[in-house]
């Protein structure tokens, strides 16, 4: 009996399954995003924030995905180091730039929201600082991978760094609880948010997650195809090279 991850380990099977899954995910993401944006645009203004509350519909899902993407990177890296799963490295490599993009989006939207909300674009508050560190961590992962020629080695070394970076996740998650600074703690989609604002937020969170999954899968497929093309090219070069003379000693 094979587990799901074992059955997916065959890249050919993965390409088949993901190929049928891709259109579904794209359509779902587009539909959810359209619905969420419509709800967000028509949502009533907040009694404290006014219309700037609409930034929340982009900010909160991006911040959430910034951490979820790191979870993807870390889990995939763990899978590579411990189980040597052949697709784990592909998954980790595909998730890192996406995570960096969402982290940047969370930082930028948060900064734009901070100006009307707190009166400043940036404060050195625990949450903001730790998310900035997460962004640097993503950049470090991408830079380390791109600086090592041997791709298999680059994958494993990046995985070590990614697993070590996991210590950042709880610090970010609980930074607003441990140090009560400017950024408010999460309400956890709870009942303290009015339903008229909670529903658009939930739909947007679902839309962003689906979008992330679609882009992640697409990036993984691209990476698999790139590796195939590379090995085909290497094989081609090998074949077209004039046969070397056998060594005299042999």
């Amino acid at each position, binding site marked *: 009996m094979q587990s799901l991850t074992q059955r997916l380990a065959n890249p050919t099977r993965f390409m088949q399954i993901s190929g049928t899954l891709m259109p579904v995910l794209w359509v779902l993401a587009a539909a959810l995003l359209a619905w969420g944006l419509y709800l967000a645009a028509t949502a009533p203004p907040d009694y404290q924030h006014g219309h700037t509350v609409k930034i929340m519909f982009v900010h909160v899902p991006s911040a959430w995905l910034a951490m979820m993407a790191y979870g993807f990177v870390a889990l995939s890296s763990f899978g590579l*180091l411990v189980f040597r799963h052949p697709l784990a490295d592909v998954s980790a490599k595909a998730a890192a730039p996406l995570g960096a993009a969402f982290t940047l989006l969370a930082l930028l939207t948060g900064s734009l929201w901070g100006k009307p909300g707190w009166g400043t674009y940036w404060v050195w508050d625990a949450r903001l*600082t730790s998310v900035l*560190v997460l962004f*640097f*961590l993503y*950049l*470090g992962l991408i*830079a*380390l991978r791109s*600086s*090592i*020629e*041997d791709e298999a*080695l680059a994958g*494993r*070394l990046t995985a*070590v*760094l990614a697993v*070590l970076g996991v210590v950042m996740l709880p*610090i970010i998650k609980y930074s607003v609880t441990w140090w009560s600074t400017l950024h408010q703690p999460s309400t956890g989609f709870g009942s303290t948010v009015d339903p008229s604002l909670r529903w658009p937020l939930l739909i947007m969170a679902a839309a962003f997650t689906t979008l992330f999954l679609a882009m992640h899968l697409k990036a993984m497929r691209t990476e698999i195809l790139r590796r195939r093309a590379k090995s085909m090219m290497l094989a081609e070069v090998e074949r077209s090279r004039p046969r070397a003379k056998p060594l005299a000693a042999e």
Partner: protein
Amino acid sequence: MRPFLALLRRDLKLAMRDGGALGTAMGFYLLVVAILPLGLGPDLNLLSRIAPGILWVALLLSALLSLPRMFEIDDEDGSLEVLATGDAPLELVAAAKSLAHWLSTAVPLSLMAPFLGLLLNLDLAAYPALLATLIGGTPAISFIGAICAALTLRSRRGGLLISLLVLPFSIPTLIFGVLATTAVQTGTAEFGPPFMLLLAISLVSVVIAPLAVAAALRFQMQ
């Protein structure tokens, strides 16, 4: 324990006899601290207020200078391969080399900090706290630095990349080190809690780093 001590003694001896690396780091530390007042203006009140931060950040940057050479020298002359195939576990080798880096670079730089504090008009009452936080916090920098040095051993742009990797991980050390020192200087907050957290970060890095370094080196020795 014997291979650990032998390796530690060897690395310390090499650092002592070479001398250049430490001299450069100390000169860099002095220059960074000396150049900041030129940029900020000679306001002694301002300088004494931000002195703990300056001393910490400049020490961090100076310690970064010597990190790329940590495994590179041994890799170039092949002795890293000998160490990796030897009887002593690679984790022990990693611990010895990180400790040697701390003793040969971070400790001298920390001992230099009080003298640089004079340049910044640091309150004399804060000197014991400054020294305690630096000695207590720099193991984290040496051991985390060892991880990043090991990870970038085969990288094409090692030196720059190390800074990119080490600095985010050393932010907690920096925050708690400066918090504890400033607490004593201003007398408004307690010294204990941030200092304990600083020591905790150091201890955790001392435990985790040898494992990570050994894993990274093993991948590259294959």
